[in-house]
């Protein structure tokens, strides 16, 4: 089996030559039905034309306010909901076509959900929950059970004590370890962690994060790490994607983005982080107002009603992702040369 051999292939440094996942033009609009015949009267633009790549061996963090489309993106990547448009390519093969059938794709890409309790079947033992996936892909029952126990051991739960238990007998941290083991049971290459540690206590959260880092090295995994916790994302991610109202606002290396963000929204979001130093506490709110309604998003740049740098061009023209540094892109008119914004400058290296 590959669990042991994969660890030999562990990569610590991302290899920029091989994109593992390529997402292009992903769109998901949820219709709001009303009236007698349920005709859609409006649409929620949950994910509106986003494209990005994930390099093999890296961790891509996705951050943003509630409702910005982070979780919808995760569910689209997992094909739990059908996209309206867009393609997802894994190792150069398009998911859902004959070259990469959805069932195969789903064994290579797995997901850990936020709610550790709801994501485990209350009527199944831990062992059966983990062994279910391999069973679906044709593995014999006792072999799948052995794999489940080995994975339990690997995520720090004694199989002897935990394999025969039910989810309600475990703590939140233990359950999330089980969910990680369940996701790993199909030996995926990419793991989507959708707020996977957000519901845990801080001390448990740190343990699970360290476990995730260990597993990444051991199994040669690639992570998409979705969280609203900017500190956690900084700890985990090599690159960070900032989302705002279903669009990508900025994407770039974590260090560069945290140090010098190029989109005013990212700057405001990072400004909302609490400093560890009491002398440097944020005094005024960096961002005022709520995110606009995604049913009727603002014209042009979606951030312009809340942006301190907004100029007429911002409300008329949709900014595209412009190079803002080495592998660093921002969808802001100020980052685009000749965009018509007075602060516009070309900072691409």
């Amino acid at each position: 089996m590959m669990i042991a051999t994969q660890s030999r292939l562990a990569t610590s440094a991302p290899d920029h030559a091989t994109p593992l996942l390529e997402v292009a033009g992903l769109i998901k609009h949820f219709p709001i039905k009303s009236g007698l015949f349920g005709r859609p009267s409006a649409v929620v633009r949950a994910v509106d034309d986003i494209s990005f790549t994930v390099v093999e061996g890296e961790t891509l963090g996705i951050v943003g306010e509630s409702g910005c489309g982070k979780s919808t993106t995760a569910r689209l990547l997992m094909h739990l909901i059908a996209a309206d448009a867009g393609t997802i390519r894994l190792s150069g093969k398009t998911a859902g076509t004959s070259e990469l059938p959805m069932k195969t794709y789903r064994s290579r890409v797995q997901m850990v959900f936020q709610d550790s309790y709801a994501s485990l079947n209350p009527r199944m033992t831990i062992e059966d929950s983990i062994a279910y996936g391999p069973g679906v892909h044709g593995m014999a029952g006792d072999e799948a059970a052995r794999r489940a126990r080995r994975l339990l051991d690997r995520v720090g739960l004694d199989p002897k004590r935990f394999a025969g238990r039910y989810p309600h007998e475990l703590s939140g941290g233990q359950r999330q370890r089980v969910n990680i083991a369940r996701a790993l049971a199909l030996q995926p290459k990419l793991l989507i962690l959708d707020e996977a540690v957000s519901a845990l206590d801080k001390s448990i959260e740190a343990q699970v994060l360290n476990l995730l880092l260990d597993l990444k090295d051991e199994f040669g995994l690639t992570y998409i790490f979705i969280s609203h916790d900017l500190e956690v994302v900084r700890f985990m991610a090599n690159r960070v994607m900032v989302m705002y109202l279903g669009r990508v606002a900025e994407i770039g290396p974590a260090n560069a983005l945290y140090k010098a963000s190029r989109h005013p929204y990212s700057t405001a979001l990072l400004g909302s982080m609490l400093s560890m130093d009491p002398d440097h506490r944020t005094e005024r709110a960096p961002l005022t107002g709520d995110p606009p309604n995604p049913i009727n998003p603002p014209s042009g740049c979606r951030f312009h009603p809340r942006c301190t740098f907004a100029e007429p061009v911002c409300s008329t023209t949709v900014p595209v992702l412009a190079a803002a540094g080495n592998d660093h892109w921002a969808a802001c008119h100020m980052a685009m040369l000749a965009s018509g914004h007075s602060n516009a400058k070309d900072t691409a290296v």
Partner: protein
Amino acid sequence: MQPNTAAAVAPAYASDAIERSPGYWATVWQRFRRDPVAVGALVVISALILMAILAPWITPQDPYKGMALRRLRPPGTEGYLLGTDELGRDMLSRLMMGARLSLFMGVTPVLLAFLVGTSIGVAAGYVGGLLNTVLMRTIDVFFAFPSVLLAIALSGALGAGVTNGLISLTVVFIPPIARVAESVTTGVRARDFVEAARASGAGALSIIRHHVLGNVLGPILVYAMSLVAVSMILASGLSFLGLGVRPPEPEWGLMLNTLRTAIYTQPLLCALPGVMIFITSISFNLLTDGLRSAMDIKA
């Protein structure tokens, strides 16, 4: 996996080394056993079922043989513990024999409706969308009629007899069971563990079998059991109206009907079949209540 690692760690992963928690139903049974009322109801129902099964061999008299000379004897008469009916047949024997048809008419339609209604409800709830709309709106049409009226109308249209009575009662009970099944399935379907199962590449049938049924059958079963009492009463009602069981077959509803002419002369005697219906249906209701509270655990 490398062979040496497998050998080194094998003992810890062996199946017999695993500590196992009692499963859900084992826990429910533990809780149920501690509820004296529910256990009492279970004992009464078991006794009734046993009596019904053994009736042909244990009745003190021939339940079909009457005698004009000993009609409508009160309970306590020598040789006829519970008296005799309007044709001079032994009441006790007839009540014992009547348990067979009455219980059969109470349980069978609910069982059939449970199978059909659960299939419809789970399919509608899991698939959702257009299938849900078509199935559940069709079910709603049946809800437009009161259940008694629907049973009478169907039996009347199909003609009297046990089989037609069964069919009409089954049709009456499919809509409520399907609706309960649909609503619990819709609830389970939205849970993350079903999403996780879909994410592992499992098909709909596998997910329904492994993840949905285990979580919905309990509540549906409890609901269906509460209908057994209703079914018995409806079946008795059909027999009372001459649409279900036909004489001389003993059935509690039918006996209630034929004895009603003697209500002023032998009121106690007339009430006996009703008492049996009452005991049975209340036992089923208490059993259902006990099961419901035993199943109300976070697991």
